[in-house]
């Protein structure tokens, strides 16, 4: 009956993630994501249409207020394309952080009753937002066709995967860190939405970085890894890449990834006691 299968339960040590175990639990990633996607649009009339409608309405409003009324420059691109390219990344980032930040609290009843690697929960929240990202990405491609924007296709192959990876690692790091913090300090329930509101304005989403004359201001803003991601994403449209700022963003993204995963791992053993 008993196979050669043995494990021990001990006081938590600060070992890093057990990848083998995560792989064994891979179906749970799927089920958590699937549940959240299903639940999200239950009892809505428009359903999945909301996924496209939300960013499109934001693009419309930003175009009206910032593009037309305030005449914010858009680096030679049509303003809707410019703002959508930024919002695409900003939306997945902020939605992930919002969902993942509260995910440990909203799943507390499960955490207290059953064991599985806790990191599945914030990652699933990110996967849910990533599905929305893919759908609005298609809408973005349609917008590109509509405005007939000239694109450097070779650059896409280099820059877009890089942009997505940088966005994902920084989202993952931030989400795990905030999810763990939120279990212990419930203040982050209030801090996160406020921080995200400010974040939209200190990330060059609705304006180009060129509006800042001082090179040091740009470099400080580059600490936000999302800036690097958006910069890479806009590169095929003929926008410049500043290598110093990109390096800052990448390093910062890596730092968030490592710190977030480390902090989550360090605290996860006690989630069930304090959640």
């Amino acid at each position, binding site marked *: 009956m008993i196979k050669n299968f043995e494990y*021990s*339960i*001990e006081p938590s040590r600060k070992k890093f993630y057990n990848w083998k175990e995560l792989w064994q639990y891979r179906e749970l990633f799927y089920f958590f994501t699937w*549940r959240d996607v299903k639940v999200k649009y239950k009892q809505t009339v428009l359903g999945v249409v909301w996924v496209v409608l939300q960013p499109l309405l934001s693009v419309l409003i930003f175009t009206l207020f910032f593009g037309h009324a305030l005449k914010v420059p858009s680096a030679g691109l049509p303003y809707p394309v410019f703002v959508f390219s930024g919002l695409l990344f900003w939306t997945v980032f902020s939605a992930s952080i919002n969902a993942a930040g509260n995910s440990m609290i909203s799943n507390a009843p*499960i955490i207290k009753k059953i064991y599985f690697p806790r990191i599945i929960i914030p990652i699933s929240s990110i996967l849910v937002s990533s599905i929305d990202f893919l759908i609005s990405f298609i809408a973005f491609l349609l917008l590109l066709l509509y405005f007939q924007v000239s694109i450097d296709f070779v650059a896409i192959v280099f820059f877009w995967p890089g942009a997505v990876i940088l966005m994902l690692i920084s989202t993952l790091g931030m989400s795990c860190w905030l999810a763990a913090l939120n279990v212990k*300090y419930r203040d982050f329930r209030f801090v996160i939405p406020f921080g995200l509101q400010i974040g939209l304005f200190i990330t060059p989403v609705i304006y180009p970085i060129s509006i800042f004359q001082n090179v040091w201001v740009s470099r400080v803003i580059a600490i936000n890894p999302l800036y690097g991601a958006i910069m890479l994403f806009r590169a095929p449209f003929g926008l410049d890449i500043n290598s110093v700022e990109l390096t800052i963003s990448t390093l910062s993204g890596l730092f968030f990834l490592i710190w977030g995963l480390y902090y989550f791992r360090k605290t996860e053993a006690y989630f069930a006691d304090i959640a």
Partner: protein
Amino acid sequence: MKPIIEIQNISKRFLINHQRLPYVTFREKLAGIFQASEKKETFWALHDISFDIIPGEAVGIIGSNGAGKSTLLKILSRITPPTTGKIICRGRMASLLEVGTGFHQELSGRENIFMNGSILGMKKSEISARFDEIVDFSGVEKFLDTPLKYFSSGMQLRLAFAVAAHLDPEILIVDEILAVGDMEFQRKCLRKMADATGQGRTVLFVSHNLPSLKSICKTGALLRDGKLVKTGSIKECIDAYASIHHRHESILDSVHYFQPFIVIKKIIINNTESNSVLVETDDLSISLYVEFKKRIAFELDVHVKKDEQVIVSYSNFVKNDVRIFEPKEYRIDYSIHLPELRSGKYKLDLFFTEPFISWFAVSENTIDMEVVNSHHHTFLNSTSLKWGSVLATGVYETKIVEI
């Protein structure tokens, strides 16, 4: 045979935060930087627990509230780590600390089966393979595509139990979950779990329901105030539990006197002086130590009641010849053979009487009597009939004539 679970010196400490909440707010943390930190009280929920569990064994973990049963199960199911000590497990484990973990009100019955099953550790393919069986067991096939929020609580519970009953781990950990739900369905689940132990599965079972523990488990572990008091056969553990339970409340305290002619020194009912009596074979023995202040007629009347109202048995001592006692101290032993009572909780009332005249003293509604009739169990489980408290067996005779 190697034990399937080795529990070695497990302790668990909790910090009691004297703020009301277990979590802290950032402001308090910031404030804490500038002031001496508040003294936190530590509390050992478990203290140095060690025992082994043999494969195929069904172990009942008993103890009163706060004894550390749930903490032990949480550590075993890896929800919370121990503070010190080590546990070695040699088998795939599933824990049911709750039924319906991960149920979502917006999802349909079908979707919830998959969600719950997967959280409990089943593979998607396993759930699909057993899907029909689970649905059959739950009896809610008509509502499979209805959101869970439109299910009655009973239906939700049946669905949850159905998924749980189809888990197939080597070690199953079950917390007090059978305390809810309708009786008939509870029995169905108990049976399913008992079947499982027959197949060599190891089950750890926590419950306050002593009769069901007794019918499922062979061995037991008794916890008290975070310490392991006893391991051994389930019967020994239940006996030990009964004797430490309510130790402080003696029957004597509950006696209410009406007349000063007798003084009751000591009452022992089924080997206990406490007001919590365990009855196992329909036998009740009462030893009464009593001093009479004058020459007097005396008799003890015993009533057994269900639900504080319904008398299911009474003694017939009064029918005997009236006995006269001298002003001395006596020990009087009574032995009572009760009718076959169904397992459960009863009240035992004692009336100290001068026959046909009046009461000297009374102990009413204070003695708890727990009846554990394990030999009834399979019998009661196997049918859907309604049973009363007393199973009055008549005398049946058969005469066969060949014609």
